[in-house]
């Protein structure tokens, strides 16, 4: 009820969603990668693809399981901690999330069992179909949840009824295809592909450093580096377009990202680094390129850009957080571009499998996708503050009538459990990745197998 409970509820949501987001960010890309591997195997019949498929499938199983259980938490978190938001925005965001469950979660879960354990039961073609369905499911899931999230950033197509609820005004199309949705979806999906390819590249690099003749390591490294080289520049373009969209609909967020406390009537500088000083409303020790921010955001050196001085103090997002998280994301994005270019150069010079420094660089960049994804998420979500539904519903008016001690207790438990469980899970993932891909990769463990034969004869004979 007080500010404390509100703050704790926010921390709890941020914590659980950040932890959760790590797994889908990885599994969206990995599902597609597996689909490509199995497809390549079916087309070419080359064993290296089948082995890589089985190698990464084991990793996928662990990551997907963690994504599932941390995701269930999210579907209840809205009600436990954000009851007022759920009541008010439920008629709009609820159906979108329900569609996510219906069209995506069931699809993933329904075919996951066959994908993990069913290759010997359904044959390769049907099994490939299952893999495709799981990959499609992860993508559909991203589409709906990003649509939901985007509506909270750029709400439209709604009316407010007598109970103060957001209700659909007419068609659902403007709600689903709200202004920031296409930009955010593109940005997030590419981010997921980048995250996965960086992990695959790091694993490939690690094994190439040990044995540069390992065919599995060579194949995965090559595929991953292609993906980084293509996706990193694409991501920078997508990010730029997303930024321009944000400038149009949520200017205060861009002001915080840029660190523009003051308005610049004739060309705003691009602040590369500096330390935001919220008390004095300025950036200390700023290193800036004059007028470049106007160039990037308005494609005109002298275009005026408004600053946070045009925004009411209690409607500003927290500048320091957004300023830093944005720089972390962009910095890592540039580093990914660098890795992509490095790999292209090495490939061109026929050193892709032989340059240890490239392999080391790929290893260092392995976790970069996760960090960038979380930093980007923080930028956009903290940048939406102080609103949950941008411009219409304040975060301070969205939370449940809970006592701070209740929220604190549950937060503490989430922290402890997540670190223990997902810590262990991450350890298992790293251990699986540390093992070199062999020529005869096994099926995922716990494969329920019947004795040979198609009909479960013993089971049928007794009934």
């Amino acid at each position, binding site marked *: 009820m007080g500010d404390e409970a509100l703050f704790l509820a926010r921390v709890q949501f941020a914590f659980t969603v950040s932890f959760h987001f790590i797994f889908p960010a990885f599994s969206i890309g990995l599902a597609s990668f597996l689909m490509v591997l199995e497809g390549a195997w079916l087309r070419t019949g080359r064993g290296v693809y089948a082995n890589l498929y089985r190698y990464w499938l084991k990793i996928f*199983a*662990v990551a997907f*399981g*963690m994504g*599932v*259980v941390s995701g*269930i938490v999210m*579907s209840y978190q*809205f*009600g*436990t901690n954000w*009851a007022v938001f*759920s*009541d008010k925005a*439920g*008629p709009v965001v*609820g*159906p979108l*999330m*329900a*569609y996510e*469950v*219906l*069209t995506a*979660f*069931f699809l*993933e*879960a*329904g075919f996951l*069992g*066959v994908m*993990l*354990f*069913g290759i010997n039961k*359904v044959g390769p073609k049907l099994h490939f179909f299952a893999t495709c369905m799981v990959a499609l499911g992860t993508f559909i899931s991203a589409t709906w949840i990003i649509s939901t999230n985007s509506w909270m950033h750029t709400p439209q197509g709604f009316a407010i009824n007598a*109970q103060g*609820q957001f*209700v*659909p005004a007419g068609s659902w199309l403007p709600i689903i295809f709200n202004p920031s949705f296409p930009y955010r979806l593109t940005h997030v999906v590419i981010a997921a592909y980048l995250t996965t390819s960086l992990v695959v590249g790091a694993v490939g690099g690690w094994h190439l450093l040990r044995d540069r003749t390992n065919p599995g390591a060579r194949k995965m490294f090559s595929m991953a580096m292609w993906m980084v080289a293509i996706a990193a520049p694409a991501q920078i373009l997508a990010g730029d377009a997303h930024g321009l969209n944000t400038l149009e609909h949520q200017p205060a967020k861009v002001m915080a990202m840029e660190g523009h406390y003051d308005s610049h009537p004739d060309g705003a500088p691009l602040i590369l680094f500096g330390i935001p000083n919220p008390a004095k409303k300025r950036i200390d020790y700023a290193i800036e390129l004059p007028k470049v921010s106007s160039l990037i955001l308005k494609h005109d050196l002298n275009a005026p850009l408004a600053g946070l001085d045009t925004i009411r103090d209690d409607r500003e997002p927290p500048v320091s957080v957004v300023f830093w998280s944005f720089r972390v994301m962009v910095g890592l994005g540039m580093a990914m571009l660098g890795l992509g270019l490095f790999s292209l150069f090495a490939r061109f010079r026929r050193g892709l499998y032989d340059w240890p420094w490239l392999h080391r660089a790929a290893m260092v960049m392995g976790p970069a996708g996760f960090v960038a994804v979380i930093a980007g998420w923080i930028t956009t979500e903290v940048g939406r503050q102080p609103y949950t539904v941008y411009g219409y519903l304040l975060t301070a008016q969205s939370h*449940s*009538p*809970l*006592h701070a001690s*209740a929220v604190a207790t*549950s937060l503490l*438990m989430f922290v402890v*459990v997540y670190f223990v*469980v997902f810590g*262990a899970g991450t350890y298992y993932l790293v*251990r*699986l990745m540390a093992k070199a891909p062999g020529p005869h990769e*096994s*099926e995922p463990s*716990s494969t*329920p197998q*019947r004795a040979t034969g198609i009909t479960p004869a*013993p*089971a049928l004979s*007794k*009934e």
Partner: protein
Amino acid sequence: MLYNYDLATVWAFILAFAIFAYVVMDGFDLGIGILFPTLKVGEERDQAMNSIAPVWDGNETWLVLGGGGLMAAFPLAYSIILPATYPLVIGMLLGLIFRGVAFEFRWRDPRHRPYWDTAFFVGSVVATLSQGILLGAVLQGIKVEGRAYAGGWLDWLSPFSLLTGVALLAGYALLGSSWLIGKTHGSVQEHSRKMAFRLGIATLVVMAAVSVATPFLAIDYWHRWFEMPRVLFTAQVPLATIAVGAIFFWSLKRGRERLPFLITLVLFALGFLGLGISMFPYVVPRALTIWDAAAPEKSQIFMLVGTVFIMPLIIAYTAWAYWVFRGKTVTEGYH
């Protein structure tokens, strides 16, 4: 407005179906978790685990549909029930985390397998108890003022809600044991049959206890069950339960393999019907009807269109996945 009334009823039935699907499907998963310590380390436990490994994820998705669907179709109910049962929901979620990761982790780390087996067991018990107590908490009533929960954070705790917690524990364990009778062979099957017999008795006893206690919670329940001529209909539920219970024990005695599970499903359906009689058309008893809590027509229609087309598909491919993994589970291969 009459149109909207019907829509809310349709959604109440869809959600009831989703919750029932969750209860019986994740019920047998969780039941196996509850029974886990009674199974021998090694072959027995592996067989039990393998019998649900390919389907547990799909089973749990019904829970997400239950939560998401409630928020979408009855947002006010969602935003009142969850804060009112806050510690239970958190407990359920944490329990589900432990038991969910155990499926993979126990194979990944043989040295620490006993820990993950314990996590599987404790997680299943905590999740089940939380769900059962939550059910009791809703039945006994939730304090509502305006559009918000107005009680304290331990209001859910009562002898009645603890009773429903224990009841669900017995019921899920019964589902788990009768599932194992059909999916396993040898010592696990024998053990499951023994457990199913005891748990069948336990479940019928706690079902009776909950049924007897419910009318005393509020006079409203009394009217719903015992007023003439309703009683002519409502009395069929306990009578049918007794009959079904008898068939269940008969099927165990006859050594039937798949029938006990199917009969257990019928038993759960009867219990669920009883709950429906107690609650409908309230979503929070005596405080909030489904029409009070319903989302606007446009939201409910939008979802209904999708549900009508997608739900049959979901049921079809889920059934296919079960079909692929039909028959007895054997442990062999990798591990």
